């Protein structure tokens, strides 16, 4: 469904450019919410609803609240200009990098489902996970079983980091409420 994908790409590009160019902080926060809406639809369209849920929770909920709390506790700089002035050398460097990525890197990527992709050179490993994950871990989704069982210590470390971030966020919020 290319019409859907192309119009979605135009929407995401427009929101990203607007987020970069606005000068007023509150407007940037609002427009960034629109950007995260587009990204959530894109992740869902690419059949990754778990990533889309994370984007929904982080993009629409946590990021907006934390940024609002930040400008509530500090200041919201008042500006008379609507847009940021465009820095042409920076645009040239970033544009050259994007052109390099599109011309050199993108053609090297393998299409979905191609059997001569590098992952098939270790077909034994891939087949082992596909065939044995349910018997080893009793988890039906192979990706989930790799995350939660085969590399469980790694995921445990990430969970500790997320827990620390949550505790520090609670500390900040508590000070906000009882100030």
């Amino acid at each position, binding site marked *: *469904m290319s*019409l*859907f994908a192309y*119009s*979605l790409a*135009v*929407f995401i590009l*427009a*929101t990203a450019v*607007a987020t970069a160019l606005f000068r007023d902080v*509150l*407007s940037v*926060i*609002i*427009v960034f*919410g*629109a950007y995260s*809406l*587009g990204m*959530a*639809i894109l992740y*869902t*369209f690419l*059949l990754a*609803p778990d990533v*889309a*849920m994370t984007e*929904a*929770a982080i993009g*629409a*909920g946590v990021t*907006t*609240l934390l940024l*609002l*709390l930040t400008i*509530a*506790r500090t200041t919201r700089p008042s500006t008379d200009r*609507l847009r940021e002035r465009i820095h042409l050398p920076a645009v040239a460097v970033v544009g050259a990098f994007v052109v390099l990525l599109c011309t050199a890197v993108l053609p090297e990527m393998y299409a979905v489902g191609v059997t001569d992709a590098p992952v098939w050179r270790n077909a034994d490993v891939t087949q082992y996970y596909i065939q044995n994950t349910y018997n080893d871990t009793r988890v039906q989704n192979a990706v989930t079983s790799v995350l939660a069982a085969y590399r469980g210590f790694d995921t445990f470390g990430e969970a500790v980091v997320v827990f620390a971030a949550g505790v520090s966020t609670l500390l900040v*919020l508590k000070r*906000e*409420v009882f100030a």
Partner: protein
Amino acid sequence: MPASLEDVFLVTAAAFVILAIFVFYRAVVGPTTQDRLLAVNVLGTNTVVILALLAAGLDQAWFLDVALIYALLNFLMSIAISKFTVERGGVL
């Protein structure tokens, strides 16, 4: 090949995405914060509709979970920004 019901859902979703681009025009030109807030709120409702249409068009019922989460958090975002503009500092 006759157009199936799934194609109708997907074309409708594409039309909603094109509509979202025009709604985003209001979020960009403003001119007031209230205009931008309303535009993003409409975009959020639009997103929930698009996700529901994708769930029907691609036949993936679990997309509706994402739509539900977005409906809740989009409301939270609008409330937070509204409260911030009315009473500075009282976000929560």
